[in-house]
């Protein structure tokens, strides 16, 4: 049987909606009604001209009939099914379900997403309560000072014949301890204040920053002007950045952004980027900056100026993702670890050696991207200090890249758990999708 796809179901749905007979539509696009029937029941693959003709006849964009919009929905539902025996059994009928009940499917996916987010928040919060070193250290500090004050005060109050020298000494100790108490109480209040103002949905500073960057489209016009705004002012104005930890991360991100913008002014950079077919090495040479800076600058180009979204993902020496700008068709994991085959990690294991690979994301509609990656070490604490690694991977969509494509691109995924490549050599844990394919 041909690979199933929802295109047929969508054609049928749309056709019924506009009230057209199957035979009538088939005639209009020049195929037999029985062939259209097979297509509508997802038993024949369909593409190219035929889909454009049908879309025209039905008065919709061809994209509305092809896959794409549902891919994320299917992934979410597959993940949801993994923890449920009954649903796992019915996985082969998932596409049929999504095709017939798109509204219910979306509701289920959203509910599942929300539940996952909330479970994560609960985890973060309970972790904070039980293992928060700052909280326990501040409480210890408060109790220690209170103990000293209470003890000293009662000596002063209850000892009638106290020696003047001792009395002065105890008064000094009291003053000292009460100043310390005021300070630690203040720090504690500030901390609790911040903890309670942090929204549940963005429970770590990294997530807070991610949300804000996503909402800003990863582009800051205020920093592109001839007299750019102060990063701290910009961060202060934002509603999304609430905790001081996220604030510090945002300021450091924007400071770097502003410096990149200074070295690679928007108009000139955009022109050079287009002219060089988005070649990072050419741009690095042209603007006399390192590759990572070019990656960052390319990812900050607004979509409407270059015609497509350019993705970027960065990690530190532990492989933890520190920056995520996803592109359509190349989803980035939010909580779980990423695919070990990403050129990002290849670059991380060989600092200073740039990597360029055509990659193909697994899934029903494999999409190709040109990935550039490089890892740059730095010595922020001086020559003898620890070496700090940062790797970055630029994700260039196929339509922007003008590098010849190999016959066999590097096949990779998002994260093992939702990756359909069952036989992958670098697999870390079994996939919940392996059995479906």
């Amino acid at each position, binding site marked *: 049987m041909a690979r199933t796809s929802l295109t047929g179901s969508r054609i049928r749905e749309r056709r019924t909606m506009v009230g057209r007979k199957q035979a009538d539509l088939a005639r209009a696009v020049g195929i037999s009604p029985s062939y259209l029937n097979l297509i509508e029941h997802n038993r024949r693959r369909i593409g190219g001209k035929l889909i454009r003709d049908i879309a025209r006849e039905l008065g919709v964009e061809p994209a509305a009939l092809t896959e794409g919009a549902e891919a994320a929905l299917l992934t979410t539902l597959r993940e949801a099914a993994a923890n449920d025996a009954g649903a796992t059994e019915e996985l082969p009928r998932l596409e049929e379900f999504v095709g017939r009940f798109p509204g219910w499917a979306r509701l289920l996916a959203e509910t599942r997403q929300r539940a996952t987010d909330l479970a994560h928040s609960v985890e973060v919060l309970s972790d904070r309560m039980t293992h928060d070193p700052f909280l326990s250290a501040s*409480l*210890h500090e408060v*109790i*220690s000072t*209170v*103990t*000293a*004050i*209470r*003890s*000293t005060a*009662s*000596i002063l109050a*209850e*000892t009638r014949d106290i020696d003047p020298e*001792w009395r002065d*000494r*105890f008064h000094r*100790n009291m003053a*000292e*301890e009460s100043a310390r108490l005021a300070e630690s109480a203040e720090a504690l209040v500030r901390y609790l204040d911040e903890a309670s103002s942090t929204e549940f949905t963005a429970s770590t500073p990294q997530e807070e920053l991610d949300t804000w960057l996503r909402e800003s489209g990863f582009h800051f016009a205020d920093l592109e002007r001839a007299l750019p705004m102060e990063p701290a002012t910009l961060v202060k104005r934002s509603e999304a950045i609430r905790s001081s930890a996220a604030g510090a991360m945002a300021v450091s991100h924007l400071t770097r952004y502003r410096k990149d913008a200074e070295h690679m002014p928007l108009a000139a950079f955009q022109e050079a980027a287009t002219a060089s077919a988005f070649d990072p090495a050419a741009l690095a040479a042209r603007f006399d900056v390192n590759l990572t800076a070019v990656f960052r600058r390319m990812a900050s180009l607004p979509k409407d100026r270059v015609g497509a979204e350019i993705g970027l993902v960065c990690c530190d020496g532990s492989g933890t993702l520190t920056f995520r700008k996803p592109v359509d068709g190349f989803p980035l994991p939010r909580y779980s670890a990423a695919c070990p085959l990403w050129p990002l990690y290849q670059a991380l294991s060989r600092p200073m050696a740039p990597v360029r690979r055509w990659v193909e994301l697994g899934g029903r509609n494999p999409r190709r991207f040109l990935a550039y990656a490089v890892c740059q070490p730095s010595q922020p604490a001086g020559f003898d200090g620890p070496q700090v690694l940062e790797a970055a991977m630029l994700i260039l969509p196929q339509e922007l890249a003008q590098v010849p494509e190999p016959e066999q691109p590097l096949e990779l995924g998002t994260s093992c758990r939702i990756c359909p490549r069952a036989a992958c050599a670098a697999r870390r844990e079994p996939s919940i999708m392996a059995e479906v394919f």
Partner: protein
Amino acid sequence: MSKRVLLVEDEPNIIEAIRFILSRDGWSVETHLDGATAVDRIVAAPPDVLVLDVMLPGKSGFDILKEIRADPATAALPVLMLTAKGQGRDRELAERYGASCFMTKPFANAEVLKTVNALKSGAFGRV
């Protein structure tokens, strides 16, 4: 007859207050600030009563207690544990490791004095 108490505590102003209270009652008060070297000091010259804080730099009060209980010379030494934390887990640990008595911060001066004297006269057995 002199009564010797050793106070292992790292907060100088708490030391000062306890020293004052106990000295006025005729105690000779010695102090030690560092957790890491406390056991050597205790074993070298065991006092009549040991007042031991839980949160110490270098080594925790519980570890110190465990070690002195394992040494025959100090196995029966009366020990008053001081802790800044709540009652639950710390009290349990103090009892398990053989503290003679347990007191939470912030404490009342009179209570400390009463307990130290009671420990000296053997009023508290090992818990």
